[in-house]
């Protein structure tokens, strides 16, 4: 069970969170303005990094914060937590 540094609560057990996957590029403001390939790439492609990547977590059973975690997917080591405490991102 990972120990996840919540910006609001401090380090908390993984069981309280939902992992929402790697941080993707932002959703195009106007999806119609991007080409088909760019759109489907945005949807289905994942960097799926072996090593350090950024991912989103939702502290659903704790304080409700969303946070971005920098984690090494090969070791689970957590390198940083880029989220400001409180509020939405």
């Amino acid at each position: 069970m990972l120990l996840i540094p919540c910006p609001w609560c401090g380090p908390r057990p993984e069981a309280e969170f939902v992992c929402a996957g790697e941080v993707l590029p932002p959703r195009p403001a106007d999806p119609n303005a991007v080409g088909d390939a760019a759109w489907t790439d945005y949807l289905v492609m994942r960097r799926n990094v072996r090593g350090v990547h950024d991912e989103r977590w939702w502290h659903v059973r704790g304080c409700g914060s969303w946070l971005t975690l920098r984690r090494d997917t090969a070791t689970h080591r957590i390198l940083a937590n880029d989220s400001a405490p409180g509020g939405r991102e």
Partner: protein
Amino acid sequence: MSAAGPPMTARRYAVALRRLAPRARFEACGAPEDLIAALHAAGLPVPERHNSSIGSDGDVRIDWLGPRRFVISAPLEREEAVGGALEAVFAGFAAADVACVTDIVVTFEIAGPGAADVLAQGTPLDVGSASFAPASATGTELWGVGVVVERPIADPASFLVTVERSYAGYIEGWLDTAAGSGSDLKPGVMLACWRG
């Protein structure tokens, strides 16, 4: 709804488990600054730190459970009064909201020297007195279900566990098992989660 249920008997751990009488309960949600302003406007205090609770006049309690979440509770008799006041205050905010959630939850009290041993069977949260000081209140997980755990300032040796009512029978059964009372729950049959 009736008063508190009778204490259950425990065998393995010295604990007393009780289902508490319901309190009026309100969820407040919104931007942190709005919520704090709303509490002030309602004449209610804000807890000193995150994940803790503070009492106010008339046995009103304010739990600060998340950046966008407060829970205000009060004796059931004052449900309408407190609810009305909160409604009035929140009506003045465009995006901060309050909802009466009295009936959503059931609260259990776990008291006695074995209380932490019973809770630790279900929650990965550290409820030790150093990390979870009196007046602490936080959302966490208990036996796979989201709950709010509190260490009341009035009786720091006990814990309050508040759980969504639909899960109350399950949590009650687990507390009973964890206390080592050896009673055998029949699966499928709910444990009167609407008892009382």
